[in-house]
């Protein structure tokens, strides 16, 4: 896929973010069926999937430059969005290596990595053409980078990143670069174990979802990453929906009407992957966020109809937890006319290869 970046688009202020037709068709739509409920929907993260967004270990798309700029803005306002506990240095280098190797392999026109050796102490050169970066550094020596290795590389990647240290048969959220989260605070959660960190999620604990997920993740193997989708909704294409900035974006939830819902209400999908890291034995948890307005989404007829069915049958606890309650009625009213009641194929693919012209 050739990449044409849209460096000027914004995720705040005038919210000029839009998806091209190609970006719509590759969107990781999260609903294979007409109803949604929590499950351990984990599958191997292989180089294939129902849409193109699944097909590379670390996905880059047309929004790359604009997203990196938005992250830099958020970090300038609040450096605490990146936190790394002191025992995570090996995991920081693991993350840098994994991202650089994969980005250079999958996007050779955009990135390149040259190594004089693989072990700590080797000279490496990293080139990031979209962001205009050429960095010579010594792998394993943080003083040869402008900031610590985890912050350095995640400033140049799309999506949030957390690293979990594994100990005491648990996973601890001991590092994170979190600037596009669905309303959770890294500064509050850093250092928590897996159960504490998922503490506020309703229904799933009682169903044993987290116990099973944790047991599974503790056995996650090097070289066999896994993925799952999670979703919520946002008003406006805003990446920074953190609790820190809730006073800024909270009022938007009260601004939705049936007339403006199509452009304002966005489906927010997280393609979450999980990687065993080689040197630290920690787990890297990239959370790649995709935003699409329901107007854009509905250009894929199957997705528009299915979204209506999922939202209209959502358990109220989940709607409340995801913060949808206030604008769900207007959203449903906007979507309702799209649903002709036709039976929809199982699965999340768009089932079309081209969008009808606008």
């Amino acid at each position: 896929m050739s990449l044409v970046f849209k460096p000027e688009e914004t995720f705040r202020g005038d919210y000029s973010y839009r998806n091209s037709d190609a970006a719509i068709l590759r969107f990781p739509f999260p609903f294979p069926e007409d109803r949604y409920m929590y499950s351990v929907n984990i599958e191997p993260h292989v180089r294939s999937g129902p849409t193109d967004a699944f097909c590379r270990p670390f996905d880059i798309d047309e929004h790359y430059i604009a997203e990196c700029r938005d992250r830099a803005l958020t970090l300038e306002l609040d450096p605490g969005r990146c936190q790394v506990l002191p025992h995570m240095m090996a995991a920081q280098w693991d993350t840098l290596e994994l991202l650089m190797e994969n980005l250079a392999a999958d996007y050779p026109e955009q990135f390149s990595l040259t190594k004089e050796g693989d072990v700590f102490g080797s000279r490496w050169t990293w080139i990031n053409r979209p962001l205009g970066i050429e960095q010579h550094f010594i792998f394993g020596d943080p003083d040869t980078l402008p900031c610590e290795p985890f912050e350095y590389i995640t400033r140049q990647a799309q999506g949030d990143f957390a690293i979990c240290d594994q100990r005491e048969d648990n996973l601890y959220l001991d590092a994170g670069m979190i600037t596009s989260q669905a309303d959770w605070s890294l500064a509050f959660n850093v250092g928590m174990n897996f159960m504490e960190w998922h503490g506020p999620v309703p229904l799933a604990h009682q169903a044993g979802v987290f116990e099973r997920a944790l047991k599974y993740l503790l056995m996650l193997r090097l070289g066999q990453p896994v993925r799952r989708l999670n979703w919520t909704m946002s008003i406006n294409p805003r990446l920074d929906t953190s609790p820190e900035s809730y006073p800024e974006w909270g009022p938007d939830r009260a601004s939705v009407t049936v007339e403006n819902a199509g452009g304002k209400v966005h489906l927010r999908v997280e393609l979450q992957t999980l990687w065993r890291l080689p040197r630290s034995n920690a787990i890297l948890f990239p959370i790649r966020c995709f935003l699409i307005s329901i107007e854009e989404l509905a250009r894929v007829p199957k997705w528009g109809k299915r979204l209506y069915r999922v939202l209209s049958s959502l358990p109220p606890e989940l709607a409340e937890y995801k913060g949808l309650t206030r604008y769900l009625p207007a959203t449903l009213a906007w979507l309702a006319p799209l649903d002709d009641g036709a039976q929809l194929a199982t699965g999340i693919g768009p089932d079309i290869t081209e969008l009808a012209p606008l």
Partner: protein
Amino acid sequence: MIGDTLELIVVAVDDIASSLRHVRLAAADGGPLPPAAAGANIQLRLQGAARTWRNAYSLISPPGRRDAYEIIVRRVPESRGGSAFVHEVLKPGDRLVASWPSNLFAPQRTARHHLMIAGGIGITPFLSYVADFAHSGASHALHVCCRESETGTFAPWLQACGELHHYWDADGHRLDIPALLARQPAGTHLYVCGPAALNDEVIQAAANAGWPASHVHCEHFGAALSGGTPFTAFLSRSGIEVEVGESESLLEAIERVGAAAPCLCRGGACGVCVTRVLEGEPEHRDHYLGAAEREGGELIMPCVSRARSTRLVLDL
């Protein structure tokens, strides 16, 4: 960095003591190997004339080395198993299939001090620990119990070791485990790897002294992931009978004969492959089924679980 098996070539074999063989392995295609952490092991598929062994060995090469993996194999007396194969048959140029590195014995990164106790060949995981700690600057001490004649055997891998002590079976040279464990500061993590008797003694002594269990670690070697004793599965709906080999999972065997078997995680967690058992007794290895479902014996997760009985009849 995605994959599950590696094609390796033996680069060198070297007898470092009468029953210890050092083996150096590289990627058969000459490329870089996946990096591995301190305490990691690889499972080697050793193809003998009559049968195949799958043995796990600790990597002793410095963590992160990608040009070669090194292991040390002790010949188990009277064994006709994998260790004898490594000592008698394996030679430079031989090709082997190995798993990617996995790690059930990684150092605790939050430790303020690492206290290691090794018995005999149980020293191998600590050789990579020492290299890791030397790089990170972590405080550590290694206490080695071995034969008096072998106190120098591992010296080439221990040059960067901080505090190092050797013990052997003679008056004045034995390790006083309770005394060692009594004087350790908060924040210490204890690791033991050796014969079962030593492991048990150290774990018991730590418990007696009041060490929190969270700070005591013991290497559990070679935990099988999906292999085991062979058995027969009969797929009642499709009428196919399949022999499940010792080195494949039930799910892999079902897939091999082309039967439809839904699955997702292939690790016993997601529940997608859950299958009804019509006859036979399952050996459950999954994280999905509850205690009652396990006891009921009517469900199985073929991606990881196997059979206690010689035959299983499945509703597939």
